[in-house]
């Protein structure tokens, strides 16, 4: 039987994908500096992003790259030095026009990394606060709060204080509080870094479900690439106050434009060498011989370049696979159990003598044993060739 299209198809897609005309957050060329120990630290070096309604943009990057600063600038908690920010079409900050709206006058909510639940208020009071600030009638607040608590499965916890809740429950209160006021834009600053892996998965799904229901534009900060991939409709990888690459998670995973983005999207193995173009592919002369892969950004012949592949793009096999390139004899150094698969670290012999290590995913039950010899094969269509440069 073939796949059957159902009617809900289009609606569901609408909800989670970008509607190009309805941009909810637009930041152009935002610059923000902080006074540091020795002179100024530029946290944002002219960052531009656009997030349409219903989209979830994820900011991914290492500690200190400026993720939080961008979020806080959009929320109005920091005042940038340059650029322009608009929320729902209204300019909330502009360095040229000297506009700066304080946070309470922007239609933006935020979930803080530390939850920032008010310890002196009950769960219901915490969640109802944004409505109270907007002068909603008491009875209506009570009703909306109850709905919201039900939506995050906290229906019976209204009278508890935050310190009487588990981490995951606190997290959900913070979510409910951010969502209840029906802001056009909700910002999430590493909301899941404090909760159990188990709870994390559950809340992550809940955020996706809530977005489908309330249709806000979201910006989500994390430095966990798995979480980023799972939640993003648009992934923004940042590096030192600049945007390194923007796109769908799959694009960035499969076709990173730099070693930096590649390594940030998951485990990689790298071999470096000198590049030569052949038919839209690139050949690298490396310590493990000739490596052939696809270029994902401009590579100049004769330059140093790096071949990059992910664990599951490589295959460790008992017999020589017969391909005429990207096949290396290897020894299994270490096998770790990773649940669905095994992660295998293999050592490739090199011409120079210093061995190269590669990390490869192997299916369970493939019978690999530590210390034994196999072949590693990486199809050239999978292997990316990237310019050398910062990792």
């Amino acid at each position, binding site marked *: 039987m073939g796949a059957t299209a159902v009617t809900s198809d289009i609606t569901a897609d609408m909800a989670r994908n970008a509607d190009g005309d309805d941009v909810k957050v637009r930041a152009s060329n935002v610059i923000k500096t902080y006074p540091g120990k020795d002179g100024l630290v530029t946290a944002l070096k002219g960052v531009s992003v656009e997030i349409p309604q219903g989209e979830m943009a994820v900011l991914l990057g290492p500690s200190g790259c400026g993720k939080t600063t961008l979020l806080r600038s959009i929320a109005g*908690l920091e005042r940038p030095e340059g650029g322009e920010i608009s929320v729902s079409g209204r300019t909330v900050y502009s360095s040229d026009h000297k506009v700066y709206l*304080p946070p309470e006058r922007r239609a933006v909510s935020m979930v803080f*990394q530390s939850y920032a639940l008010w310890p002196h208020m009950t769960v219901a009071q915490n969640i109802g606060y944004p409505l109270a600030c907007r002068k909603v009638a008491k009875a209506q607040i009570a009703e909306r709060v109850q709905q919201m608590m039900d939506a995050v499965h906290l229906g019976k916890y209204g009278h508890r204080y935050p310190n009487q809740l588990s*981490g995951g429950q606190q997290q959900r209160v913070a979510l409910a509080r951010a969502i209840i*006021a029906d802001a056009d834009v909700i910002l999430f600053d590493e909301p899941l870094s404090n909760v159990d892996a188990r709870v994390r998965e559950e809340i992550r799904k809940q955020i996706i479900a809530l977005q489908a229901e309330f249709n806000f534009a979201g910006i989500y900060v994390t430095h966990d690439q798995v979480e980023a991939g799972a939640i993003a409709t648009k992934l923004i990888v940042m590096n030192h106050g600049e945007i390194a690459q923007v796109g769908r998670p799959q694009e960035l995973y499969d076709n990173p434009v730099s070693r930096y983005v590649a390594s940030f999207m998951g485990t990689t193995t790298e071999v470096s060498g000198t590049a030569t173009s052949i038919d839209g592919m690139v050949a690298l002369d490396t310590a493990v011989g000739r490596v052939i892969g696809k270029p994902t950004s401009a590579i100049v012949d004769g330059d140093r370049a790096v071949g990059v592949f992910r664990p599951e793009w490589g295959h460790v096999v008992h017999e020589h696979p017969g391909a005429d390139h990207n096949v290396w004899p290897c020894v299994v150094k270490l096998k770790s159990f990773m649940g669905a698969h095994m992660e295998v670290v293999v050592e490739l012999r090199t011409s120079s003598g210093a061995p190269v290590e590669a990390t490869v995913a192997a299916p369970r039950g493939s019978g690999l044993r530590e210390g034994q010899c196999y072949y590693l094969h990486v199809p050239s269509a999978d292997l990316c060739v990237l310019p050398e440069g910062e990792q």
Partner: protein
Amino acid sequence: MSSATTLIVERLGSRRSAHRWVTLLLIAVGFLVLYPVVRMLWRSFVVDGAFSLSAFGQLFEARGFSSMLADTAIYVIGTVIVATLMGGFLAWAMERTDARINAIAGVLPVIPILVPAIGLIFGYLVLFSPESGYANILLRWLLSLETTSGPISIANFPALIFVTAVSFAPMAYMIVSASLRNADPALEEASRVNGASRWRTFWRVTLPTSRTAILSSALMIAILSVGAFTFPLFIGTPANITTASVFVYRGFSSWPPQQDVAIALAVLLTIVVQIAVLAQLRAARAANRAVIAGKRSSASALQPLGPWRWVVRGFIAFYMTAVLLPLLALITASLLPYRGATVSFDNFSLDNYRSVLSDATSREALINSFSFGAIAAVLAMLIAAVLIYAATVRQRSRGIDLVLYVPAAIPNTALAAAFIVAFAGPPFNLYGTAALLILAYITAFLPQASASATAAVSQLNKELVEASYVSAASPLRTARRIIAPQLLPGLFAGWVIVFFLGVNEVTISVLLAGLDTPVVGQVAVEFFESGRVPHVTAMAVLTFIASLVVVALAYKTVSRAAATSR
């Protein structure tokens, strides 16, 4: 190391003996604090071997008892409100808003502690005495007033409360700013992004989350103002204000003495203050529901205040003026032959300093006060740190807290009298010795030492200590190499406070200082009573400057030792 010494060190360092040492210390401190009090109570309430409460009856019937109660209530409540507001507001402005002035953030709370109470009072008297006060003369000239006195008088309740509050505000500042620093600024930011204005955020979030800190600083100030003596004596007397501490002082120092009445009042105060302390501990425990779920944002977000910024800065400047101006006036006065002398270069001279420094007794007093103050501060901090650390480790702190905070409720006059009763004669025979003064200082300032030590110990990370144990370090080594360096900066802050309190102490010193052990407070009072007021001002300035030098030197040493404990 020889095997014998190794053995001894191991013995000392073992857990069991560490335990025993702490218990021993607690007993010793308990004895030091409670024995004099019990001896004194015994003397007052046991008449011919029979217990009698007649002293209370006498107290309630004493002249001016009810108006004294009223004055005390007004004074304490007023001071608590004004000082807490002042200190709390300064703390909020400096920790949470862009009105913060980085240059003075560190010294703001310390300066008023450096200025001795007696110096501050003289400074204010010099500024605001009705006819010859510099500030009053200036104001009359500025406002072209025709009168020869006024316009500002400090012989009234508002002025008494204000001056006391200026001096006590740092307590509130330190407690509240520490709590603000520990509180997550995201709590306030969350309120802003959820649509609350700056002021709504202040009322609905900042205030309630600092409630515990505000309450405990209010209590601290209440305890201090119940015991405050110098302010109500000098400023309150002309205004016909008698607070409990002055009442007790009169009971003790006037002749014929009304000791029993004074002691009865001291007992009453002790009971009230202890109830307040217990209530506060309770409240602090119940309200201990801070949620620090996760990683704090690194940003130390300072709220922009817009135009209000300058209003708030104005207040900070006003406060600084309220502390520094009297100091300037004091210094000016110390250069003049007598207080009413015209301010002119012809009249300025260092004669007062010369006579103070050429007088063997006052020289000796300066040296004594500094050494006694330093020693008492070291010992008090040591005792407080060890006991409070032990209390946190054993999680059984009530007894220790009580012992350490009892002296807060005993007026210094009563404490000094109790010390004479208990330790002057056999078997201790400490009368007139430096030891007696130092012991009395330690006892009197244990509460302040404990408050600082508690703050320092609460910063200590338990895992850092445990990491030392699992590295096979003995408790002694752990105390020396891990705990002490961690505590040092916090304990130093406490040391500075206790040191100043000791150097500037008057009430105890007057009763306990022996002929061979003169101290600044006692000599100053002697000067004052022999009409040598300019010498008192010179002495106050000298003490202030010398204290600054001592603290700066000590700070250098400590910061070198602690340079790395960031």
